[in-house]
């Protein structure tokens, strides 16, 4: 445990200056909040007004909090690289008040009783500054209300920040959409050494399970069942020995077909044309598509028909940091609300490229306007389609007129259509035993199994060993003779 630790703390930390202010220690993903410093030309001119990031959002928060509540807050902003790293930092004794892990880590933290629930005041829709409860997308709210740990819903402990799905980023010049509409494509010999998968056990296990259970998951009787969503989630979180065993086989096939197990190089390899398909998170896919377009290359994104992994990152307050201090908790909750104000949500979306959980509406239409501003069809566009975003914005009139090509590009990745979201499933946090089983499976995928060694391999080794032993003995004898 001593080996991995708080490595990245120093890189983006900030000095504390004020002594009498409330100190709010926030730990977030790297590059996961608008840090301002935009060019003048980057101004987003929406109907509701211009949006321009000048200062880091957490500094704007300090100012806003003082103006609204008359209390000085100092935000100590730091970053982490992975959920596991954050968890290690916490277990090693680092103290934070507000952190932003992914859904499965939130589940783990809830189970292990690390968290402080949001106060009743936070859920009050009438309070002036409660931007989160009023503006969060009904879709996200339903997911947070509908999932429980130990009888308590996620909503009591977590507030959504960004969300997305997993899917396949592909090059439409080389690949038909049908070729990547099943997760089985990850081991399709047609993609021999031209497809990449994530080098991360959770991101690899999910598509493996989906591909193994393909027949069941795409069966009409299954998909039209009353409790389809629950059934799907149960299937996708299956960690039984047989499933893990089958996943091992699937991923070993994948290893023989894939170009690489990548952590971050997949996007670049798509743009340079080294690979033609790439398992990708929707947010990174948007980024890759933007990058490729600068080189006049048009990539596309699709979600296989079995299932997609729906993920969230959310703000949670830590018991050890808040430590029963009501002033601090009020500041932490206000911080979440400030991030959820629609114009600030837009700033974050623009800066990070991921999709905010905020839909807006009550306190401003900036988010929808921003989507329209980014993807809406120009007047002279010829090929236009209607794209229904009502499921996310909770508004039947939220139907966007977008260029048809966007229906398989950034718009699709950023806000997949409702029918895709219907087959989305959250990946739970697994218990210790299941976790150990899956981790072992993942290591075994990558190891060379000695049982696979052919006979001639053993013969060569025997010859080498004999040769080495012989040479060694010979050199010994010669030396004795010399002496």
């Amino acid at each position, binding site marked *: 445990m001593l080996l991995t630790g708080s490595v990245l703390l120093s890189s983006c930390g900030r000095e504390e200056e004020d002594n009498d202010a409330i100190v709010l220690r926030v730990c977030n993903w790297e590059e996961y909040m608008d840090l301002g410093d935009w060019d003048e030309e980057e101004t987003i001119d929406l109907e509701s007004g211009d949006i321009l990031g000048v200062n880091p959002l957490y500094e704007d928060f300090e100012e806003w909090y003082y103006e609204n509540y008359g209390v000085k807050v100092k935000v100590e902003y730091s970053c982490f690289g992975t959920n596991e790293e954050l968890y290690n930092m916490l277990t090693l004794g680092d103290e934070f008040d507000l952190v932003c892990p992914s859904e499965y880590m939130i589940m783990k933290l809830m189970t292990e009783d690390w968290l402080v629930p949001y106060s009743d005041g936070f859920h009050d829709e009438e309070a002036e500054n409660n931007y989160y409860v009023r503006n969060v997308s009904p879709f996200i709210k339903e997911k947070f209300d509908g999932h429980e740990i130990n009888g308590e819903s996620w909503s009591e402990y977590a507030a959504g920040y960004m969300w997305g799905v997993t899917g396949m980023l592909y090059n439409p010049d080389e690949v038909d959409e049908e070729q990547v509409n099943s997760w089985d494509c990850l081991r399709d010999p047609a993609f021999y*050494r*031209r497809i990449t998968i994530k080098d991360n056990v959770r991101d690899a296990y999910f598509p493996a399970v989906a591909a193994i259970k393909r027949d069941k998951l795409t069966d009409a009787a299954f998909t039209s069942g009353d409790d389809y969503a629950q059934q799907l989630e149960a299937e996708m979180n299956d960690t039984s020995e047989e499933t893990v065993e089958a996943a091992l086989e699937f991923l070993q096939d994948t*290893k023989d077909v894939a170009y690489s*197990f990548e952590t971050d190089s997949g996007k670049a390899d798509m743009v340079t044309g*080294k690979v033609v398909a790439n398992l990708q998170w929707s947010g990174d896919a948007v980024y890759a598509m933007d990058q490729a377009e600068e080189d006049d290359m048009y990539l596309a994104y699709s979600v296989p028909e079995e299932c997609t992994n729906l993920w969230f990152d959310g703000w949670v307050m830590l018991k050890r940091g808040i430590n029963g201090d009501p002033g601090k908790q009020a500041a932490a909750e206000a911080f979440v609300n400030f991030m959820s104000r629609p114009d600030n949500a837009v700033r974050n979306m623009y800066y990070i490229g991921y999709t905010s959980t905020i839909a807006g509406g009550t306190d401003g239409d900036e988010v929808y306007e921003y989507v329209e501003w980014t993807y809406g069809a120009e007047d002279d566009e010829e090929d236009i389609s209607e794209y229904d975003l009502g499921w996310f914005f909770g508004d039947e009139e939220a139907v966007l007129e977008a260029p048809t090509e966007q229906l398989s590009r950034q718009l699709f990745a950023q806000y997949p259509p409702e029918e895709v979201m219907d087959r989305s499933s959250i990946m739970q946090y697994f218990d210790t035993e299941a976790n150990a089983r899956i981790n072992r499976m993942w*290591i*075994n995928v*990558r*190891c060379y199994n000695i049982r696979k060694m052919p006979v001639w391999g053993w013969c060569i080794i025997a010859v080498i060993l004999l040769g080495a032993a012989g040479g060694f003995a010979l050199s010994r004898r010669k030396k004795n003779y010399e002496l």
Partner: protein
Amino acid sequence: MKYRFSRKQLAIPYALFLLVFVAAPLVVIVYYALTGSDGTPTADNFIRFFSDPNTLGTLLYSLILALVTTCVCLLIAYPVAYALAFSRLKASSVLVMLFIMPMWINFTLRLTALKEILTLIEGNLAFHPFLNSVIGMTYDFLPFMILPIYNQLERLDKSLLEAAKDLGAGDAQSFIKVTLPLSMPGVVSGIAMVFLPAMTNYVVLDMLYNSTYIMGSLIGSYFAAYDWHGGSMISLILLALICIFTLLTKSDEGQKTRGGSLV
């Protein structure tokens, strides 16, 4: 009492460094390797390593990769070192410089360049993972093989060669009977400097998209899966292998290795 400075005290910074960054972590590794997740002493981790076909396979794969890399390095390095040591060029030190210079550039940067070159040659990098790994490792470790051999050959007493010639030995014979045996300390130290790191240098494999684990990445994957005990045991086994290897080469060459290492 008056403070007196002795030469021994010069070693204090190094001793401290050793204590904090080598000795102490080693104790932690040994502790983790020999205990189970409940903290009680156990040999389970050891048994697990030697009964799992996957870990054994990884050990074998690493050994073979390191062996092939070492052979390739040796085959390339010896003639180069020989040519450098015996060249009549006044500028031979410049040539040696040319071989050391790549080491001034960070090797992940060099690998990034190598990746592009290999892609250009092979069309698709992922077709030959093992070959690429050998090339990458050779690229990385070649100077470590050339320099010890070169140093050894350069120090070689040229009068011995003249004597061999006087006594009627041909070029080939004097090479086999005189030059080769006398250069062995350099060769052995070169082998040690290439073989051992090559078993764990997983960055090369990662960067050149060989998705098979070697010992280094295996340890990393155990730690990533929070299996501190299993990972520590593998580290310990690797350490034992290194010790055995060092002892073997040392006992063979004894005192003759005089500063046969780098520069």
